[in-house]
């Protein structure tokens, strides 16, 4: 066995804190090492050439690279090995940057640690075995979960490329939060105007199969071959027949708060969320429908029978199975629950509202047809409070919601437009106007006579028939009380309440802010940690519309890679069974979280016995099986007991 060891300076990132020359000398005397070199940037083209040349000239059969984390460049170096004709899995990386030079101050000790890490990598490398990477076919279809702007964009991009898309939306219509908004900052386009054509495109797209009023309930399989179970909730209306004539709603006698308008108005029990809904199909609210509850009302049924006869009370919940190659998650956000900040009085006063409620008030299709009327009156003094539920450790949200500064500025502008006489005050902590045209818009709003006061209000309370917002103006250094008859709370963004459920369904991780975690914050911002599953929009973190759209298109592009290549390489680090050692106890079968192991009969001499057998396609390579096996028969490739133990032994030695 011939090993090559390659030690990277990473410019000065490693070299500054690790004695690279000493490390190279040290590497030279390690067992089986044929050649040891150090280089400025091992990951660079010339660096990789060094490795390739040595593989060819010295006939190296294992390569150890001491550099940055394997999570950074393992793939880079594997490719280098492959191009030099060596199996890419004959590589071991010693992480002497992230876990050594960057975290230790004492150069001597960092060098000593680097020696140990390198010795461990060398001892493991000697035991590495070439692994075969297998390919599997990809189902040429994608699943998009969530029908907000991100989901819509992703679905359209994928479908336009010619692949089938299943778009699942839990609400009766796609559109998400964006369809509820009035104008969009900073350009002031009408949100619905720019969104509804895209929604219509979804509805009409030959490659998109829309599952509205549906949820994903189970996902099995792996990249290229996901099997998804979708639960279709009964609308009690035949989507193919309903022409959204609206007769039914006229006859329906039950009125319930209209959730689309954030309960600021009422709707009927049989309803369409909003006129441009896609699909353009009514839905019956099962919690309130008299027929469904007590069977004593058939008004809508009667009237519909005279029309398209679309109402069907016999509809049942339906489970549909689809097969897809990739999945885009675009489950969006929820608004921070402002009642958890009781000092702002949202639960007490009707004229304290949230930013989204303001959007509905201001929206021409909203409950007041766009007039800003609260308690029957046009407010004279309007106060906006920013950062409600954002940048606030007391409610567990340390992050900035990224949209509130600008939507507040936009809403202040709308107030100015609609109520030219009103005084408008914005309380803010910092104004973050970082996007294209944002600062200019903020400036414009200030010019329009909107008073920005720096300070985080401590309380909103009623004095007489008016509200008082109490705050410390931290620029003036004074306590201020501002009277208002409308207070708008710029509530922040939190992950959709179903995020945790989605995460466990798809085995995705969540970051501490509870948004879904991307595979890498810089380099893989739209990938999840699971192959074939991508993230778009606010499920990954707060975003404005252009960012959501951009990420959605990125996620679509990423998910198209396996679809268009038609093949994915399944990971090689699966488990394998040494059959002669297997006693067929089935502990691994029980322990495997992926049902990837089964017992299979084999003949051993005259005896027929059962041994474990791994389905490499289902195996995700966690190695749980290997840790419960008493006879050591099942092992994980590249993480076998003997490989791990060799590292343990090497780390236990002292090196000069």
């Amino acid at each position, binding site marked *: 066995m011939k090993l090559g060891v390659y030690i990277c300076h990473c410019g000065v990132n490693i070299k500054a804190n690790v004695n690279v020359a000493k490390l190279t000398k040290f590497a030279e005397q390690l067992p089986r090492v044929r050649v040891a070199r150090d280089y400025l940037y091992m990951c660079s083209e010339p660096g990789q050439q060094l490795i390739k040349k040595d593989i060819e000239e010295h006939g190296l059969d294992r390569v150890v690279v001491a550099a940055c*984390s*394997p*999570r*950074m460049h393992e793939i880079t170096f594997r490719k280098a090995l492959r191009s030099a004709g060596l199996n890419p899995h004959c590589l071991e990386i010693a*992480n002497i*940057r*992230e*876990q*050594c030079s*960057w*975290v*230790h*101050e*004492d150069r001597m*000790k*960092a060098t*000593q*640690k680097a020696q*140990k*890490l390198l010795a*461990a990598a060398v001892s493991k490398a000697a035991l590495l075995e070439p692994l075969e990477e297998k390919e599997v076919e990809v189902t040429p279809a994608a699943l998009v979960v969530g029908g907000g702007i991100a989901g819509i964009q992703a679905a359209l991009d994928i479908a336009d490329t010619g692949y089938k898309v299943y778009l699942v939306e839990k609400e009766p219509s796609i559109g998400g939060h964006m369809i509820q908004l009035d104008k969009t900052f900073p350009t002031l386009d009408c949100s619905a105007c720019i969104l509804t054509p895209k929604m219509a495109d979804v509805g009409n797209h030959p490659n998109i199969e829309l599952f509205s009023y549906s949820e994903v309930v189970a996902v099995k399989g792996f990249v290229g071959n996901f099997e998804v179970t979708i639960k279709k909730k009964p609308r009690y209306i035949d989507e193919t027949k309903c022409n959204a004539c609206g007769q039914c709603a006229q006859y329906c006698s039950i009125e319930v708060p209209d959730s689309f308008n954030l309960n600021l108005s009422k709707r009927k029990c049989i309803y369409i969320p909003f006129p441009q809904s896609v699909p353009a199909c009514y839905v019956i609210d099962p919690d309130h429908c008299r027929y469904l509850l007590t069977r004593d009302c058939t008004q809508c049924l009667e009237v519909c029978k005279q029309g398209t006869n679309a109402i069907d009370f016999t509809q049942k919940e339906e489970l549909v199975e689809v097969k897809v190659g990739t999945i885009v998650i675009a489950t969006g956000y929820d608004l921070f629950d402002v009642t958890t900040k009781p000092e702002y009085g949202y639960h007490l006063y009707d004229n304290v509202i949230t930013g989204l409620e303001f959007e509905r008030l201001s929206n021409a299709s909203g409950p007041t047809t766009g007039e800003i009327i609260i308690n029957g009156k046009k407010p004279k003094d309007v106060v906006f409070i920013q950062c409600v539920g954002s940048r606030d450790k007391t409610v567990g949200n340390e992050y900035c919601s990224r949209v509130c500064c600008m939507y507040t500025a936009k809403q202040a502008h709308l107030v100015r437009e609609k109520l030219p006489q009103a005084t408008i005050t914005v309380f803010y902590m910092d104004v973050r106007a970082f996007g294209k045209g944002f600062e200019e818009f903020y400036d414009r709003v200030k010019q329009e006579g909107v008073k920005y006061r720096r300070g985080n209000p401590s309380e909103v309370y009623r004095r007489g028939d008016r509200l008082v917002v109490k705050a410390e103006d931290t620029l003036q250094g004074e306590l201020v009380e501002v009277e208002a008859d409308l207070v708008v709370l710029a509530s922040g963004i939190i992950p959709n309440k179903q995020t945790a459920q989605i*995460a*466990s369904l798809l*085995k995705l*991780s*969540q*970051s*501490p802010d509870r948004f879904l*975690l991307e595979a890498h914050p810089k380099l893989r911002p739209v990938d999840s*940690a*699971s192959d074939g599953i991508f993230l778009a929009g606010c499920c990954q973190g707060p975003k404005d519309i252009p960012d959501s759209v951009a990420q959605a298109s990125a996620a679509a592009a990423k998910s198209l890679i396996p679809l268009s290549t038609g093949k994915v390489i399944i990971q090689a*680090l699966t488990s394998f069974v040494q059959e002669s050692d297997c006693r067929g106890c089935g502990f691994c079968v029980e*322990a495997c*979280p*992926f049902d990837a192991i089964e017992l299979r009969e084999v003949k051993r001499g005259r005896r027929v016995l059962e041994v474990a057998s791994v389905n490499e396609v289902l195996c*995700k*390579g*966690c*190695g*749980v099986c*290997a*840790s*419960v096996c008493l006879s050591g028969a099942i092992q*994980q490739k590249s*993480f076998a*007991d003997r490989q*791990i*133990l060799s*590292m*343990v*032994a090497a*780390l*236990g*030695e*002292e090196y000069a």
Partner: protein
Amino acid sequence: MLKKFDPNIMAFLCNWCSYAGADLTGTSHFHYPPNLKAIRVMCTGRINPLMVAAAFRHGADGVLISGCHPGECHYMEGNYLARRKIFVFRNLLEFVGINPERLQMSWVSASEGKKFSNVVKEITEKIKKLGPLTTFDE
């Protein structure tokens, strides 16, 4: 002069959370003592407590096993399975008179770079206080 006790601590870190978290510690340049040396595994569920015993036998004064927070395992259950095994093994160690504090387990996510450095600092201090593990010196 007595040589100052410089403990040898071995860590088994899961690829997805704690190893990534340790990488983030590096990227963020949070410092911690160099006593701890990590072995990457794909999941804490891979870790067999006998590996811990082997680490002690080969000279570790302390062992850290770190993985994803409960419910966040990349493989769904690996960390839960590991926790159970390590719990039992710690009890066994204690019963034969080896301080169970020498075997630590932590949950460090990919985003908890700061936490990782704190964990390493604390465990290093802890093992320094306990002194060298001499049971396996022979």
